């Protein structure tokens, strides 16, 4: 291994940029190259399913760092570059154009791919999915066209992306049908009471929601989609179809190079892979938890915090990332903020007005708080985040009592946990 060679970062998204930044903050002075396979400098993805669909704007508004910032930190960008293989024995990367680059250390931040619909007709025109800025532009144009032509938009998948796209389509004036295979919205991540609140809001905004919908094929003519068929024999007319059925961690390079992967590049809580010269962070990873479970998170916070750990690990030190995961989603005027992992909960209590909706769902397991979903309840979210990071828990009765100040638990605990998070 050439210790004078640069640190290479494959993937110029949120995690890649953060590793580069953190390496400089941690004192790394060697060369640093951030490699991206798109032509755009690093940009934020969350707005692509939200604001950006309504008003695509200047790319600079999405920039994760300005050119000045990259220059100041001596982070070199290599865009439009597809890595084809990692040669671990020689510590080199190979590119599609035949080029090779040596590394001293390597970071993989390859992100995730939109899960493809493996059905007849899935490759018809105007069957769209969302991952990149180009995808967002195409969906935005399709929603506008459907609104103008009075043709319906069909969204396959009632998760975050599908619902954010549905909300945007309604705002743009298009008719929308959401086809969800399971009995409720966002069922993988929320309790029924939260799903039901979003169901009411989407219906109130005129979205047609179909549950238990098993899509069997897409039909079209002249290469363009015209309808979506389901197993119950129904056929939904479609001016465009947006597929939001989840993502697949992009571990292809890592797996081909023999790194341990399990639907994601396996990392520990310091972002280290099975190769001591290689770290990985963000959507492309699967993290082994203390209890042995594998955690795959697709979120900005996970990308940023894992990236900070990864940068420190590249310099031979440890910074375990164990903070409570958080996410957000904007649908109409509801700000959904989620913190913690609700998996395995045995009790849910609510605080606030469920009908409005302006409430939080507190998830407990064996009497301990494990997660909180807040709908337009910013204060609950912020306080719960601190509680979870400090390992503190209200009782279910306290959580459900709007008169009880969650903050008071932090104040009481302060002496014992001074600056714990």
């Amino acid at each position, binding site marked *: 291994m050439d210790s004078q060679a640069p640190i290479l970062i494959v993937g110029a998204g949120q995690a890649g940029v953060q590793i580069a930044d953190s390496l400089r*903050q941690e004192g790394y002075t060697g060369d640093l190259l951030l490699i991206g396979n798109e032509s755009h400098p690093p940009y*934020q993805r*969350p*707005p692509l399913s939200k604001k950006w669909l309504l008003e695509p704007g200047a790319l*600079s*508004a*999405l*920039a*994760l*760092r*300005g050119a*000045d*910032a*990259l*220059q*100041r*930190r001596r982070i070199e960008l290599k865009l439009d570059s597809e890595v084809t293989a990692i040669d671990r024995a020689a510590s080199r990367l190979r590119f599609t154009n035949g080029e090779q680059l040596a590394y001293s250390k390597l970071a993989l931040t390859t992100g995730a791919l939109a899960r493809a619909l493996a059905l007849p007709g899935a490759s018809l025109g105007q069957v769209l999915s969302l991952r990149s800025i180009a995808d967002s532009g195409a969906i935005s144009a399709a929603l506008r066209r459907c609104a103008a032509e009075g043709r319906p938009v069909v969204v396959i998948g009632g998760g975050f992306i599908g619902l954010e796209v549905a909300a945007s389509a309604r705002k743009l004036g298009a008719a929308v049908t959401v086809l969800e295979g399971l009995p409720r919205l966002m069922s993988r991540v929320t309790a029924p009471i939260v799903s039901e609140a979003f169901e009411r809001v989407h219906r109130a905004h005129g979205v047609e929601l179909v549950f238990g919908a098993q899509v069997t094929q897409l039909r079209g003519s002249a290469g363009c989609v015209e309808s979506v068929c389901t197993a119950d024999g129904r056929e939904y007319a479609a001016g465009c179809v947006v597929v939001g059925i989840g993502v697949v961690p992009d571990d292809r390079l890592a797996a081909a190079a023999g790194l341990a992967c399990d639907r994601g590049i396996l990392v520990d809580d310091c972002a280290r892979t099975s190769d001591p010269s290689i770290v990985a962070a963000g959507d492309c990873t699967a993290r082994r938890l203390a209890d042995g479970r594998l955690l795959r998170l697709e979120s*900005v*916070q996970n990308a*940023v*915090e894992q990236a900070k750990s990864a940068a420190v690990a590249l310099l031979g030190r440890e910074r375990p990332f164990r*903070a409570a995961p*958080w996410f*957000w989603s*904007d649908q109409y005027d509801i*700000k959904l*903020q989620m913190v913690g992992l609700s998996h395995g909960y045995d009790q849910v209590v609510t605080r606030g007005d469920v009908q409005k909706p302006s409430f939080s769902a507190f998830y407990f397991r064996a009497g301990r708080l494990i997660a909180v979903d807040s709908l337009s309840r*910013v*204060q609950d979210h*912020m*306080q719960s*985040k*601190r509680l979870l990071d400090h390992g503190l828990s209200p009782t279910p009765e306290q959580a459900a009592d709007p008169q009880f100040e969650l*903050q008071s638990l932090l104040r009481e605990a302060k002496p014992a946990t001074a600056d714990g*998070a």
Partner: protein
Amino acid sequence: MAQVTYIEPDGATRTLTLAAGTSVMRGAVDAGVEGVEAQCGGNCACATCHCYVQEPWLDKLPLPSDDETLMLTNVAAERRPNSRLSCQLIVEPGLDGLSVRFPDRQS
């Protein structure tokens, strides 16, 4: 246009000229000012662009929205009377000379 002076966590200062309508957070992120994370990209959803507004500017800024006030209740660094989220501070000519300091931690 307005000049905004940033004080980084270690005390170093940087003065930038920003176009009206730009957020104080965006100006910092574009220029690589240290001490700001802005994980949510300006959606008032994460409180990782927390700053302390320097005298005499606090009273000259529009008041924080309810959401911003609530987000500020649990920022990672100490919350002070002059704490604001820099993504919610929008540059306008009347703020020429504005100065903010970023804390030593955002998350």
